[in-house]
């Protein structure tokens, strides 16, 4: 065993250490003056000095920047505390595989294993408790890591597995034991009864893996049973909520360019007749709460595999990320026990998504971050991916009996076992201890190799069907793929990370970076050779049959024999009650506070403030297609609305990608929350010069609890809005996902997240030259406000900044909104608009400020010209109302007439002009100047909160 410690040469700044010093100061410990971070490598080998030196000098320590030393930890000087942190046994060290390869390349073949660790040298006056706090809050996540004590890192031997077929007794057990079984596998009473009946007919008990398969296949995560249930709501019966609202809208709209909706791993639309694009957004909430970095990175890994598993495989071309966290400045005494602080979750999630997405070479182009204390224990992590594929390969394929089941990609370990049932359950303080195996660290390079190889295999037509191994592992992937045919799988053939897995663990493992393909036998050799040439492991693990049965084997023993019909159609439907009592909120009564201070406060609120710190750490330029970037304007730091990319580099056709989310309106009415999210996402598309001709929507519901009648009633309201809006706007839904249990229990209290609906949109634009950015372009430009303003401040950022909720939630009149948007896109297509921004959080005040400082220009605006749908007697209400379907547009004076003719049937007015003064001047309804502030001051307030 060798231990190598690598440190930076003295003259070089230790950026990792400096970052930690800032984090420690944020914990209130200002006595820490310095932190050094050292990389530690443990080599399981007996090497001679020359070999060791070769490895250290060639691989572990850079001769220009680093020193290394061998042997155990050196004692530290007084006043310097040393903490060494290593991965727990069983956690795959992400660096090990590459390090082993590189050592072999050097010609050293006697190293058996390599583990990495980090050593932190903390200088300063610290007590034992403080050091422990630093470890717990910043350095160690006990789910995956531990502090190395005196003894060296161990390389554990995994025990061998000896086969024993396990049965679960269902036929002779009593009621209390049945309850126990139901709880263990996550079945409802009805479900377990159906299963018992099935096996009673067969005259035998189920095996453990049969019950596991049913548990995975029937889980909320896989089958969306709430959405498919029979719901009793306000005296009516809703037979399948999804089919009667969201899917119904798509069916009624019947757009010929919708190629594949709600049937595959992602929704697919026609791009240009030759190419198709697909889009999927996933939630990865619970794992991210427990281990933010690993949870978020596997979230992005999973949604990318959805895209690779859509149709006959698509190339991932863009990512979107939307996060909801607790406030980063949450006092520690408000943090529930065993919950990570929002700041740490934010940093971990950001790093996980960026490291994984950047390594895959997929640009992260669009997203949002929202904050609310109720997300503290249940953060939401939405990861979306857009894919591109030839249109003729857009539909899921079909295998025939005799085709082979090929498993490709990473090896299978105990990762994520029961992740699906974990995802569908409530979190508690104990979850962190119970869920160790539900979180893993992804390996993006394995996934990148999979993408590279699959696209080549697709071009050569070597497989006929593909799906990803996600939640539920092989059980869900193979079980769904073979639903119409039947399949035999030999579980002992699945390549394992380490010995000791039982057949059931192999079947339900959720190890990342795996795909399942159906390949005709005649292509198998070529397919396996192709995978081999790219360094990707691929194995034939079974074959499809025609008997419509799921048969699993471990060596010579059959361990599962289930009818596909029972597996996929045997689940008894849920019947649920839903109510929606309108929450009673009052409109606040208050005197208008100082308007400049109000604007600065709203600009600097967590929800509105600049997210540049996050965005910059994503690669948004890779693949070369970005046309409208997430940061726009004179200094590339203004908040763009939607993103535009050109997925085909020699074409001018573009894709517009946007996200709409407004959980704070849901506190007042989930119907208007959903309607507002749809209006918002479409506003963003219109604002960048797009149109509603070919726009598809995705829904992602994250609910506190949908099994209680009030939660379910809220869900019904939101779904009804989705139908009502989509049918009028003409924008079909093509895919969706839900995570319906986001509650946290501690000390008898249940904290529920706000009901949160994310609407994502993808649109096709014929010519990217139509694109418009939101920054003001030139002084003298005429500023138009399009759409009418109402006294709708319920759930607004302004009210929130004052501690109010309010009751007048913004509503949407979709017919008017559609006409307005169509008119505006007619104007933008004629290039009459040189800057456009939608009005969302913070209303007119925030939109004006953003357009001004992004363009490096000033503006003069008159509130008495703002089109009102009702009398509003307060300037602050006009400035901060969040009425939907409104835009600001800058129009050159020479285009005034043409613009006004096109917009003539719409509520609009010229409310001011762009100036070269660097000041934002706003005149109130009485004609007096109510606000005059330097745009630099506004920008600073907006940039400061998240300028980490």
């Amino acid at each position, binding site marked *: 065993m060798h231990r190598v410690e690598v440190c930076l040469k003295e003259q*070089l*700044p230790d*950026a*990792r250490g400096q*970052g930690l010093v800032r984090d420690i100061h944020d914990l209130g410990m200002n006595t820490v003056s310095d932190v050094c971070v050292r990389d530690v490598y443990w080599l399981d080998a007996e090497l001679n000095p020359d070999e060791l030196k070769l490895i250290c000098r*060639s*691989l*572990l320590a*850079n*001769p*220009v*920047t680093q020193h290394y030393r061998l042997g155990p930890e050196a004692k530290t000087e007084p006043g310097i505390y040393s903490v060494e942190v290593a991965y727990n046994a069983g956690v795959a060290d*992400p*660096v090990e595989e*590459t*390090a082993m*390869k*590189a050592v072999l*390349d*050097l*010609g050293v073949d006697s190293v058996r294993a390599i583990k990495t660790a980090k050593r932190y040298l903390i200088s300063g006056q610290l007590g034992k408790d403080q050091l422990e706090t630093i470890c717990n809050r910043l350095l160690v996540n006990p789910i995956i890591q531990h502090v190395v004590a005196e003894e060296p890192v161990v390389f554990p031997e995994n025990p061998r597995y000896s086969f024993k077929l396990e049965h679960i007794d269902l036929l002779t057990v009593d009621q209390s034991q049945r309850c126990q079984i139901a709880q263990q596998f996550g079945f409802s009473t009805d479900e377990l009864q159906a299963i018992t009946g099935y096996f009673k007919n067969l005259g035998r008990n189920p095996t453990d893996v049969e019950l596991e398969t049913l548990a995975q296949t029937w889980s909320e995560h896989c089958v969306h049973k709430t959405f498919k249930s029979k719901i009793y709501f306000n005296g009516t019966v809703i037979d399948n909520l999804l089919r009667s609202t969201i899917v119904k809208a798509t069916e009624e709209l019947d757009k010929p360019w919708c190629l594949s909706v709600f049937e595959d791993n992602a929704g697919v639309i026609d791009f240009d007749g030759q190419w198709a694009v697909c889009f999927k957004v996933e939630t990865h909430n619970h794992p991210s709460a427990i281990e933010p970095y690993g949870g978020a990175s596997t979230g992005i890994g999973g949604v990318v595999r959805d895209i690779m598993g859509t149709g006959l495989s698509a190339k991932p071309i863009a990512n979107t990320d939307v996060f909801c966290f607790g406030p980063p400045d949450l006092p520690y005494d408000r943090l529930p026990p065993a919950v990570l602080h929002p700041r740490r979750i934010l940093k971990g999630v950001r790093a996980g998504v*960026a490291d994984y997405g*950047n*390594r*895959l*070479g997929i640009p992260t182009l669009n997203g949002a971050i929202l904050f609310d204390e109720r997300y503290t224990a249940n953060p939401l992590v939405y990861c979306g991916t857009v894919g591109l594929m030839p249109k003729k390969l857009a539909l899921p394929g079909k295998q025939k009996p005799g085709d082979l089941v090929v498993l490709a990609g990473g090896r299978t370990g105990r990762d994520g076992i029961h992740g699906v049932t974990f995802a569908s359950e409530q979190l508690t303080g104990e979850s962190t201890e119970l869920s160790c195996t539900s979180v893993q660290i992804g*390996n*993006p*390079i394995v996934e*990148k*190799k999979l993408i*590279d190889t699959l696209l080549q295999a697709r071009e050569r037509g070597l497989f006929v069907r593909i799906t990803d191994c996600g939640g539920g592992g092989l059980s869900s992937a193979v079980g769904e793929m073979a639903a119409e045919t039947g399949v035999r799988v030999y579980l002992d053939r699945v390549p394992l990370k380490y010995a000791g897995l039982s057949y059931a663990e192999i079947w339900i493992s959720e190890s990342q970076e795996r795909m399942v393909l159906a390949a005709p036998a005649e292509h198998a050799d070529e397919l396996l050779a192709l995978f081999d*040439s*790219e*360094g990707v492991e691929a194995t034939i693990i079974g074959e499809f049959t025609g008997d419509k049965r799921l048969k699993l084997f471990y060596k010579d023993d059959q361990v599962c024999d289930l009818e596909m019909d029972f597996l996929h159609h045997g689940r008894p439907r849920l019947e649920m009650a839903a109510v929606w009592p309108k929450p009673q909120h009052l409109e606040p009564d208050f005197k208008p506070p100082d308007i400049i201070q109000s604007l600065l406060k709203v600009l600097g609120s967590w929800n509105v403030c600049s997210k540049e710190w996050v965005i*910059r*750490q*994503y*690669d948004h*330029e*890779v*693949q*070369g297609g970005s*046309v*409208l*970037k997430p*940061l*726009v*304007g*004179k200094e*590339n730091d203004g908040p763009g609305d939607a993103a535009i990319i*050109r997925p085909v*580099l020699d074409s001018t056709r573009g894709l517009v990608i946007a996200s709409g989310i407004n959980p704070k309106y849901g506190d007042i009415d989930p119907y208007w929350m959903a309607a507002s999210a749809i209006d918002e996402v479409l506003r963003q598309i219109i604002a960048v010069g797009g149109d509603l001709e070919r726009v598809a929507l995705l829904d992602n519901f994250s609910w506190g609890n949908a099994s209680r009648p009030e939660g379910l009633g809220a869900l019904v309201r939101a779904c009804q809005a989705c139908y009502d809006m989509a049918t009028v706007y003409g924008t079909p839904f093509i895919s969706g996902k839900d995570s319906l249990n986001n509650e946290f229990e501690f000390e008898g209290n249940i904290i529920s997240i706000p009901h949160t609906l994310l609407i994502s949109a993808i649109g096709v634009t014929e010519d*990217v*030259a139509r*694109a*418009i*950015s939101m*920054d003001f*372009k030139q002084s003298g430009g005429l500023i138009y406000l399009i759409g009418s303003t109402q006294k709708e401040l319920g759930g607004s950022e302004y009210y929130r900044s004052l501690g109010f909720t309010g009751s007048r939630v913004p509503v949407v009149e979709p017919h008017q909104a559609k006409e307005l948007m169509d008119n505006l896109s007619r104007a933008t297509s004629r290039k009459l608009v040189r800057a456009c921004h939608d009005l969302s959080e913070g209303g007119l005040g925030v939109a004006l400020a953003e357009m001004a400082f992004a363009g490096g220009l000033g503006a003069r605006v008159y509130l008495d010209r703002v089109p009102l749908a009702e009398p509003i007697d307060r300037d602050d209400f006009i400035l901060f109302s969040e009425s939907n379907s409104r835009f600001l547009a800058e129009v050159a004076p020479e285009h005034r007439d043409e613009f006004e003719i096109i917009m003539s049937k719409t509520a609009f007015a010229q409310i001011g002009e762009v100036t070269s003064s660097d000041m934002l001047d706003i005149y109130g309804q009485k004609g007096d100047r109510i606000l005059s502030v330097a745009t630099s001051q506004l920008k600073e307030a907006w940039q400061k909160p998240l300028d980490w």
Partner: protein
Amino acid sequence: MTHIKTLVLRAPGTNCDEETAFAFQQAGAVTSLVHISQLIGRKSRLDDYQILVIPGGFTYGDDLGAGLVLANEIRLKLGRDIEDFIASGRLIMGICNGFQVLVKTGILPGPMTNLPGLTLTSNDSGRFECRWVHLGANQKSRCVFTRGIERLYLPVAHGEGKLVADAEVLARLDAALHYTDEQGNRQAGYPHNPNGSAADIAGICDATGRIFALMPHPERHIQPCQHPGWTRGQSGNGDGRKIFENAVEWIKSL
């Protein structure tokens, strides 16, 4: 006319291969995406090409240091082929991760047998950052890729782009590209120099001028609408295009 053949090298984790190939195609070259295993396994021959480009990405996850494991592999398994390729007067280009690879093999600043005394390490910010930077081309450089270029505006996207070198290596380095401010001035500080690179160096070439590498991504700015200011009327014709055209023209002129 004979085709100018460019080999775009792929390895596990390469991710800018397609747009780099596209940029060379736009410049008139014929491109092949070739996996490192094909070169090592002798299924493809470096000798069949006139230009070798190592594109951006995170080869082998950048584990143990950006580009290091691929550099190790190239040095130990393809070293002779690379030496022959260089000796026969052809061109090598490294972009971002390709720059890190070329430095860590010792191909840059070259010759390969010497210890480089030069590396690319973590940005001073400690972060991966994606932003657009202004570049000035060193008019005294021997670099064939930057001929006729004065200024460039290109994106960077990296976490380990800070050039660090021993003093005497730095003194004789052919720094072909420098980070500058909008007016073209060096020593403009962060974020103009996005990583804290010594002497604001963004790209270097070897003593022959035929091996060139840079941290910014010229392949991401070969068309007007890739410019972040194009909606403000600031676009040109794609600043990075000229680099690829120079390479192809130089081979043609042989």
